[in-house]
């Protein structure tokens, strides 16, 4: 990251930051007035309609990684890089039928932890909690750090201040407005991101044609157009499986499956997937244009702001600032809300205070959100660069959970030995290959090992699960 490359006047940066902060917090407080119980707060009354449902599925999946890393991916791995990134939309597509199934099997469920506890028992539940909290917290930390770093690079706003404001704003409106506020703001953020990407894309194409981009790549960066680019084709399924693991296990997605109105879940995730699908290409191709536009790239993670500032000047810099802020907020708020609900439901309600009232639980969820925000802040403040790379250990962990989840939802013969073994062996094998071979095989190996174990254990199983046990929580 080149901290010295500043695109916006810091005063303008602060004005934009303040304006959007007031907007999100105001909406959070406004929408939060409707929440009376934990169910209202955590699941928006289980009544989210199709438009908001589709937008929130897409928005949560659009992180600063999508808008900033897709161009970086395109610059490093070329056409395959963009296409490999697009496969992450399969996570949303395939979660559509799962959401229908989840809603049917667990009409009164709150979290993905509820599923592991009721379906596989306490040992599997504990492993799941360790894996998912590791994933969620590192995602949250990497996102907040990215926010601070990007605001500093874009507008010269000091890292700690930028990070604190983004995190603080998200904590405030999530605490006050719960999932309703998160989903409402997600809708607005999705529209802003989509419109921003379209404007930037057409602006780039008005200055350089795709033909010129292709000719420049052929002459100087031939590997980016190579159909058999080894690093890029290895990324395809590794990324795809990483994405599936992320969506299938995390409470961010399960809480939405529970929150959407009956009959909405399947369609909303499908539409969300379609909204997300073109974004890595639309946001990523501008990186491929850098050569044809004569933009020198000091480091690959700054390619998008550099190209956009070159093409659109100050207006472009304002645009990228807003897009980045929206993509960060739409993911940080969702993670805060879903992880706080997971801790409230699975740890506070199940382990510490089993007899809590609905009103009390709502209060607990708000305090947990604040605590989570403070913990994230404390981890981000020292700006330890290597912290974000820890996130990539999460690939094997989430990949190993794919088969325990899908077989547990559809097969009566799926059992505890299959699930626990699949998660532990898969994650172990994945982490070993991460260090011995490389990141590009870790998730694939984890999922393959977990798959083999789970399918084997299920084939030999004599037990048959009674689905009614998942409804126990009524």
């Amino acid at each position, binding site marked *: 990251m080149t901290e010295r490359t500043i695109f916006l006047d810091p005063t303008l940066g602060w004005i934009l930051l303040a304006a959007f902060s007031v907007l999100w917090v105001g909406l959070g407080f406004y929408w939060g007035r409707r929440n009376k119980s934990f169910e209202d707060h955590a699941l928006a009354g289980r009544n989210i309609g199709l438009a908001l449902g589709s937008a929130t599925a897409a928005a949560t999946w659009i992180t600063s990684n999508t808008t900033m890393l897709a161009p970086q991916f395109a610059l490093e791995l070329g056409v395959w890089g963009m296409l490999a990134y697009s496969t992450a939309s399969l996570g949303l597509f395939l979660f559509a039928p799962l959401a229908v199934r989840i809603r049917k099997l667990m009409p009164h469920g709150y979290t993905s932890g509820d599923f592991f506890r009721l379906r596989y028992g306490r040992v599997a539940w504990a492993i799941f909690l360790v894996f998912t909290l590791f994933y969620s917290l590192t995602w949250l930390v990497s996102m907040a750090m990215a926010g601070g770093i990007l605001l500093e690079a874009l507008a010269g706003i000091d890292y700690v201040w930028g990070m604190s404001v983004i995190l603080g704003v998200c904590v405030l409106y999530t605490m006050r407005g719960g999932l309703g506020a998160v989903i409402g703001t997600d809708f607005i953020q999705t529209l802003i991101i*989509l419109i921003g*990407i379209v404007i930037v*894309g057409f602006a780039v194409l008005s200055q350089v044609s*795709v033909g010129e981009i*292709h*000719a420049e790549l052929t002459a100087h960066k031939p590997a980016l*157009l190579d159909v058999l680019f080894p690093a890029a084709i290895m990324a395809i399924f590794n990324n795809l499986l990483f994405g599936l693991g992320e969506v299938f296990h995390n409470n961010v997605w399960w809480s939405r499956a529970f929150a959407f109105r009956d009959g909405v879940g399947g369609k909303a995730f499908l539409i969300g997937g379609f909204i997300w699908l073109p974004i890595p290409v639309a946001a990523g*191709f501008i990186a491929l244009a850098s050569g044809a536009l004569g933009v020198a790239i000091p480091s690959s993670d700054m390619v998008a702001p550099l190209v956009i500032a070159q093409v659109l000047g100050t207006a472009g810099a304002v645009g990228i600032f807003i897009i980045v802020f929206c993509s960060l907020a739409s993911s940080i708020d969702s993670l805060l809300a879903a992880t706080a609900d997971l801790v409230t439901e699975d740890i506070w309600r199940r382990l510490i205070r089993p007899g809590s009232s609905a009103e009390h639980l709502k209060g607990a969820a708000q305090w947990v959100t604040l605590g989570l925000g403070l913990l994230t802040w404390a981890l981000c403040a020292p700006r330890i660069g290597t912290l974000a790379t820890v996130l990539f250990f999460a690939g094997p962990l989430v990949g190993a959970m794919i088969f325990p989840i899908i077989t547990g939802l559809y097969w009566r013969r799926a059992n505890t030995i299959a699930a626990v073994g699949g998660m532990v062996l898969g994650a172990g094998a994945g982490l070993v290959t991460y260090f011995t071979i490389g990141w590009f095989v870790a998730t694939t190996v984890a999922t393959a090992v977990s798959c083999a174990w789970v399918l084997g254990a299920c084939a030999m199983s004599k037990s048959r699960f009674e689905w009614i046990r998942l409804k126990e929580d009524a």
Partner: protein
Amino acid sequence: MSFSAGFLEAIVWASLVWCAVSATGLGVMLVRDAKKGSIW
């Protein structure tokens, strides 16, 4: 073997138009939900 200029042209334009259609579609869906009084 390389991706052709035509292929690159197709995915770039299709993705941009697709994003524009998505944004419009979301707006239309929200208005429709609002008319039915079933946003949430």
